[in-house]
């Protein structure tokens, strides 16, 4: 793998994470339990899609074959996507959506903090921009997880169930492969295993306040960010997200 190939692959991971999660969160538009949460979810989705445009736009520049961010989003199929398994998991109930968001935001915040110091100026600039937005995301998702976890018997039960369901998808975020290692050694990206300690500290404190119990299970599903084995859910998501381009190829307005 050349340096350019590794960089391209890494940028797809960053952009596909924000794209797939952004789409998932946008599925709530018009359906959230209360208006304020509906607006907050839509705003979060908007930030993530905006970040996607920057990451996938840069991926296209690095690849040098004239593909745009829209081309990557709309004209690839499941096996080409490089997002984490966590972000493609279905919304479930509101609590499950917020638990997924909290787990991702905690990771995303530390990742972007590291990338803001990247030796690649283009990556550092996007990360610094995105970090300002993600600071608000992690504040909100952690407050919501705490509020619902330490809420009613029903909300507590649902949040614990969401945590138990999603916990096996946490490990993939911190599992480095050849791409992550190459980028870390080049000073472009932070060391993933080193981010885990900060994540654990933050999440343990959130769970403590939320009166939730961290699952005693270190098993981690993998295969999302390498594209080797996505869960069944991504294909269904793409049928909706890419519907227009599939029904009317090349449609533009």
């Amino acid at each position, binding site marked *: 793998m050349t340096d350019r190939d590794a960089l391209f692959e890494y940028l797809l991971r960053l952009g596909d994470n924000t794209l797939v999660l952004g789409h998932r969160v946008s599925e709530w538009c018009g359906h959230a339990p209360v208006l*304020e*949460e509906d*607006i*907050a979810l839509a*705003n*979060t989705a*908007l*930030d*993530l*899609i*905006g*970040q996607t*445009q*920057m990451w996938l736009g840069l991926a296209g520049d690095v690849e040098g074959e004239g593909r745009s961010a829209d081309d990557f989003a709309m004209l690839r199929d499941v096996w080409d996507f490089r997002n984490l398994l966590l972000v493609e998991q279905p919304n479930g109930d509101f609590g499950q959506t917020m638990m997924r968001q909290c787990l991702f935001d905690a990771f995303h915040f530390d990742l972007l903090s590291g990338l803001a110091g990247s030796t690649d*100026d283009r990556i*550092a*600039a*996007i990360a*610094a*921009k*995105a970090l*300002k*937005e993600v*600071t*608000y995301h992690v*504040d*909100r998702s952690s407050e919501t997880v705490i509020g619902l976890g330490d809420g009613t018997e029903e909300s507590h039960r649902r949040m614990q169930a969401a945590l138990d369901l999603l916990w096996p998808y946490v490990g993939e975020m911190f599992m480095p492969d050849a791409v992550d290692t190459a980028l870390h050694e080049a000073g472009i990206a932070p060391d993933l295993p080193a981010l885990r300690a900060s994540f654990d500290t933050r999440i343990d404190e959130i769970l403590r306040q939320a009166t939730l119990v961290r699952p005693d299970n270190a098993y981690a599903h993998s295969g999302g960010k390498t594209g080797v084995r996505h869960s069944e859910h991504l294909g269904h998501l793409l049928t909706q997200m890419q519907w227009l381009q599939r029904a009317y190829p090349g449609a533009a307005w």
Partner: protein
Amino acid sequence: MTPDVALIWTWLDEVPDPEIPVISVVDLGIVRDVSWRDETLEIAVTPTYSGCPATSVIAMDIETALYDRGVRNVRIKTQIAPPWTTDWLSDKGRAKLRDYGIAPPSPAGGPDACPRCGSTDLSRVSQFGSTPCKAHWRCNTCLEPFDYFKCI
């Protein structure tokens, strides 16, 4: 003949923000640079939030305003570093926001006072408001909800 850059800044200060039309794109601090490159006027614009849908409308409004002044060759350059901060809002812009009913950003992380009645007894409804750049607050004295232009 190419108009002076200082004059162009005054023209840009008349281009309203599409979401909050009481302030200009210059008040908002998103115009980062104006310069002539030979016969082309290059304008560096920075987005407020990365997904802000107003960004493309702003670029079009700037081009239209300059076209109306006779400037035909305009190139809008998107510049993301350094990232936009609410510190770049002009004092004039802050005052206009308050008059319009939007509490301007404050380093304290929340509004100083209700933009309608001036009360400082306030509560936050949601960190996310009607646009990406605003949070939703409520005044406990006059009971009116209001937007707060949040700090980033």
